[in-house]
């Protein structure tokens, strides 16, 4: 589908139990199919930041952003312009590589992709590779022929380039009753 492309959405949420549930539950209930979601605390302890990637047309994404904003625990939502954002994910890949020749090839590719070998056993290697999702896809394609035993990807974390940022000004944005 030509209109469906990947969108990156950043949400600053309250760092409280149940928030991830209410966000992911909303996606399910509203029939949004997300590609990945990552969460972690930010420099303000009471807040966390989620990066959500979704494939869809413009209308779907707009609706998703509105539904996200509607959740009480969601403080701010912004859409990142994919062309103007840094998006990274990490993958850990366990490869079956008992032969020396294969190992040498793998290490060569790891080097090209600026990955690291983070564990080795006589039978296996674990490789850590970080980058945009395309880079990771490309690396995984290469590794297929060697035999991927296990794979884990973190999902995308992203920030806008330059000075654009999601600002939470503690006083201004607080609703007082």
């Amino acid at each position, binding site marked *: 589908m030509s209109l469906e492309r990947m969108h990156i959405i950043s949400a600053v949420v309250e760092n409280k139990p149940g928030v991830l549930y*209410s966000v992911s539950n909303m996606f399910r209930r509203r029939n949004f199919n997300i590609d990945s979601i990552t969460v972690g605390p930010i420099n303000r302890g009471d807040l966390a930041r989620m990066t959500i990637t979704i494939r869809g047309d413009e209308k779907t994404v707009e*609706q998703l952003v509105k539904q996200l904003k509607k959740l009480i625990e969601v403080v701010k939502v912004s859409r990142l312009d994919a062309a103007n954002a840094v998006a990274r994910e990490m993958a850990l890949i366990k490869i079956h590589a008992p032969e020396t020749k294969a190992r040498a090839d793998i290490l060569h590719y790891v080097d090209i992709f600026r990955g690291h070998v983070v564990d080795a056993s006589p039978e296996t290697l674990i490789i850590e590779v970080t980058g945009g999702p395309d880079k990771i896809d490309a690396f995984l394609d290469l590794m297929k022929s060697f035999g991927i035993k296990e794979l884990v990807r973190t999902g995308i974390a992203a920030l806008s380039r330059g000075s654009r940022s999601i600002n939470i000004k503690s006083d201004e944005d607080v*609703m007082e009753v």
Partner: protein
Amino acid sequence: MAKMSGAKALVESLKQQNAKVIFGIIGGAIMPVYDALYDSDIRHILSKHEQCAAHAADGYARACGKPGICMATSGPGATNLVTGIANAYMDSSPIIALTGQVSTHGNSSSYVIGKDAFQEADIIGITTPITKFNYQVRSAAEIPKAVKMAFHIATTGRPGPVLIDLPKNVQIDTAEMNFSEEIKLLGYKPVTDPHPVQVKKAAELLVKAERPVILAGGGVTSSNAFQELLELAELLLAPVATTLMGKGCFPENHPLSLGHIGMHGNPAANKLILEADVLLAVGTRFADRSTGRLDTFCKDAKKIHIDIDPAEIGKNVDVDVPIVADAKKALRAIYTVIAEKIKKKEDSTWLRRVKEIKEQCLNNASANSTSLRPQILLKTLRQIIPEDAIVTTEVGQNQMWAALHYKVFKPRTYITSGGLGTMGFGFPAALGAKVACPDRVVVDIAGDGSFIMTEQELACSVEENISVVVIILNNSMLGMVAQWQRLFYNRRYIAVKLGCVPDFVKLAEAYGAQGIRVGSLEEFTRAVKSAMKSDVTTVIDVPISPEEDVLPMIPPDRGLNEMIVG
């Protein structure tokens, strides 16, 4: 600051919110709260099923505009509330649900959250998609804040249900309570003021409009924007159609009133809205039952959409001028801008067209005037009961007949389950409405199938002296489904025949209520008059034909232009 138990703090906090009444059912995990209620003057009404406690709170809220409160114990008590909460969520009704929960921790017992304790249910998980907000209190000291937050969230912005889950130990624990602490909601700031640029754009469209139509939804009622709607309509001389949820927000005896649109909408409303060149939609979410097929709904009209919930803008219908705001403020703002620009034009071609179509459709609605047909019964009912009487409906044919044939003149006097379509809603909602407005006549227009679902609340109505009138349009059928089977399933009737069980007169009497069966229009009139004077709830059983259809009807997935008239 004062030291007290969580339960006591809850009751104090409710008082601070001006709570007068709670509908609920007691049980093990909520006993400390009930014990604290013992010393308070908040009235507790003992429902007979938690679903009805929630519906009663909902009916209460819709009748008087203040949040309704329902309460239940953990586990089955809480899960029984679910339908009522979902109903309130779909119709944006402000209710507060308080649920007991097993303890957060215990010293020697496994009566704690997460251990599958007796009567444990994850009500937070269960109600997340059907509440505006829910919250499990984890320590007693949080209670004043939690209650304040709940009432604030339930009643501001787009109203909706909020649930507070109260673990038993939190109810019992004592703490220093701070009732004046401010609450901070980082992620909740509903926009209520319309953007002036959008208002100006809307005003320009409306001033230039040749065939303007206003579509008013439940949001007009939520924001009490009745006067603003009336004034704007009269200034523009724009006919006003409503959604089912909007019924009552514009007087249906006003010359500009078209009645409601939709699957069983008023023919005049369904026809004329499609002729509009500018549509001003306010407080409506363009529900499927209102719009019919979207690709034929007002496709050439310029659309202005006022809603307080930004997520409703563009969700179902693309609009030209979105205005995120409180309906009252937005209508007032548009009025002000337009009033400077135009003078009322009296006799336009459009108004003549409106009048003509309305008259045509009126003729369609005339029928044999003596038989016990729903149309006649409901028109007669309108003549008997006072203008400010509150009508609730069940769901199905009774609801649609009521929408079509019972005209509503005053705001908040037509209470119906619009979004969720909950059979059994009308009767407990009527009880809630009567508690909110004890001096008004309250009538539940029911069907036999719906009434059976919550009929046990007759006990509540008698025991708590809440007397309402129930009119059962009794066709011994699940009539709406039977109608669909008749129209779309080649009369293959399955699972719709209820038979003449129970005998509703005897049933009412068994509960200590009054039961009357009527066989003629005269008897009906007499029964309603006697019921209005009765000290106990009266159930009026009106046998009607099982073959009676609700017409007109737009078949499912068809446009408003594809009306089956009959």
